[in-house]
């Protein structure tokens, strides 16, 4: 059994330096499209019409991106004639309203998280699970996943909230003691994603619960979720521009 100890030591430390330093390894994020200037308004309109999720809006020569709607289908990345610029970042957390209140100071270095899979496709949940692996290791930041909502401060909702999970999700939320925050992770949890609002899907967590923070992406990479959790814990400020849909554009 001592083998495992030495094996682990030999493999060394794999953990990212984030949030002390930005993470620049390849493949940590799919990136995101950013607002792009085109040569003409027709090109911008064509680029906007390519998007199956209506995340791109033509505004004169510019194609503006609403990241909250983006489903990462990559059609504006390659393959189509009019592609947008893509940026390889991961700090995408945003809030549905202008008012955002972080948790009190005592939660900064001790945050307990409960995740509810409300009809998720599996990608967002898998990315959230990766936060426990040695690369991201949220334990070093004082964040833990709990099995019971009674001990949780943050509720991460993944999935568009399928009808059968509406009840359990509400129960989970009600079982959490105050203060608590709800984070919608992924495009499905924000506005239903490709599933939308149907008889079997509520079209996002906002229809069911009061959502405090949103992390766009389909799925958002682990670092984006980590960024969101740091914002919830109050260790990072949430910077909102006038329009909450654009960040550092």
């Amino acid at each position, binding site marked *: 059994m001592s083998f495992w100890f030495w094996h682990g030591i030999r493999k060394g430390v794999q953990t990212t330096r984030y949030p002390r330093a930005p993470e620049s390894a390849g493949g940590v994020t799919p990136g995101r499209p950013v607002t792009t200037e085109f040569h003409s308004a027709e090109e911008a309109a064509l680029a906007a019409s390519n998007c199956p999720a209506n995340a791109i809006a033509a505004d004169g020569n510019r194609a503006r991106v609403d990241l909250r709607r983006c489903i990462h289908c990559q059609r504006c990345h390659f393959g189509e004639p009019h592609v947008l610029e893509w940026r390889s970042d991961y700090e995408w957390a945003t809030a549905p309203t202008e008012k955002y209140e972080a948790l009190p100071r005592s939660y900064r270095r001790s945050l307990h998280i409960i995740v509810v899979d409300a009809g*998720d496709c*599996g990608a967002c949940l898998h990315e959230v699970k990766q936060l426990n692996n*040695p*690369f991201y290791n949220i334990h070093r930041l004082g964040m833990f996943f709990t099995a019971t909502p009674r001990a949780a401060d943050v509720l991460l909702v993944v999935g568009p909230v399928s009808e*059968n999970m509406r009840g359990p999700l509400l129960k989970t939320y009600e079982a959490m003691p105050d203060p608590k925050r709800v984070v919608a992770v992924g495009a499905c949890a924000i506005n239903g994603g490709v599933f939308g609002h149907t008889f079997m899907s509520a079209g996002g967590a906002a229809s069911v619960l009061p959502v405090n923070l949103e992390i766009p992406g389909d799925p958002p990479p682990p670092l984006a979720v980590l960024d969101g959790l740091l914002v919830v814990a109050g260790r990072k400020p949430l910077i909102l521009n006038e329009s909450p849909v654009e960040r550092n554009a």
Partner: protein
Amino acid sequence: MTATSSPVALFRRVELDRLAAAVQERFGASVSLSRGDGGVALSITLLEPRALPELCKFLFWDAGCSFGGLIVEERQGKWCLSYLFLAAGSGWIEILLQVLSSASSVPSTSSEIHAADWHEREAEDLFGLQFEGHPRLGDFILHDQIWPEGAAPHRRLQRKSMDAHQAHFRRRPNPDWRPLLVVRDPGAFAMPVGPVYEGGLGQSVHFLLETVGEDVVRAVPRLFYNFRAVEKIAEGEPVSRALLLAERFAATSSFAHSLAFSLAIERMSGAEVPVRAKHLRILLGELERLRHHAGAITGICESTALAVAASQAAIIEERLLRASCQFTGHRYLFGLNTPGGLRRDFTNESFAELLKSVDLATSELRVLEERLHFTSSFLDRLEDVGLVSPDQARDLNFMGPVGRASGRCHDLRLEYPYGGYEGYTFEVPREVEGDGYARLRVLFQEAYQSANVIHQAAERLQPGPVTAHCEAPSGGVALGWTEAPIGAALHWVRLDNAGLVERYRIITASFNNWHGFRVAVEDFAFQDFPIILATFGLSATECDR
């Protein structure tokens, strides 16, 4: 240890002509045979519904075909049922049955083919179709505690179809609902697990483990908490939107499912996919399989709380995710498949990077496997736990790595190759013990074989286009199939005259394997339940759609 076998020994090829002759001889007037279309080799139209169980039994047990699934459609006022079987090496067989909706009752085949049980229950819940002789209809997809009886949201006969995008109709939660408990022992109780369990890091499933204190006597799963009615949403949508749905209903096997959908559309339109695209598709499919299996191995190590091994396996998986992202632009390979080929091409340098990552992952997996073999505390939790005997595997039609660990070795890549697998040589692992350790060994071996196939694919690449023009015809129907990491995935598509989706049916291996999962859990201590769950590596969201 592992016994890998060559395809010739494993799959007893079923000769289609002989089978057709045998069916004609045995069932004579009740059937009418013809060539199928859209990927189906033999189509048996059943004229006498009473003969359905008998015919299914003949095909499954006597002829040795494997069961694919049940497709229910509502066309022109009639119910069209299509039972799919695979004759290994020869092709798909479908049994077509048309029933007038007024006499809406079909004989149940689940006593002959147990795997048909859930297909029939789903049809009853979503279509309202009654299956005579099925003892347990109801409370399946539409949970009884919130859905009223007779909702049948997929129907469209004589009633305005329930538009998938309309707001839901009124539902009344039933406060007196009680689950159906089976064990009658004075001290028996049913331990509830889920749907929010393991901190939510597990997918939403609900189990009632009926026990008298030590062993689980009966495990009753309740799934479909993640049911989003993907099949219904796709109706009336163009093919490009349905492709998005195919990709995203089960993201950890998204490439395999989007590939199956694309193959169906290509088959319908008769488009010829370029050679380079075929090899690239194989490469990417195996990359997904390798990454998926690394994740499953991580899950098994985590369930037994072997922390260092779990962390090391997680490192392997994260590296593969990053390699996938660097290679394709998305960690889960979204946005690559399209009917007609792939959406993008790759540079030679990126191949070199990818192959380096794959080799590193493989060597690390080998080290991990060897050390796990010598960790007796780990093996104690897996060996002889969660047993599925070969007979049970056959009975319940287990697919994928789970089936292979119990001697049931079916693999669509070899049995009925698709998309270019014909020219590849690789082995399919097979174990017969059927316990957790056998499933783990199968996962490791399959991962190595996937790496092997990736190398073969990279070698065979020639420069060329990666996409061909594929126009979806109006009024076509086709079946597309792939071997997803969890098992066989079938996508069946029918387009209407305007080229929009009329009916989209997805049959996944998870749906099949979840049905039989309970035999592995029963008669074992309930502390072993999470471990058995992890060794099965099933996806609830792939089952629920």
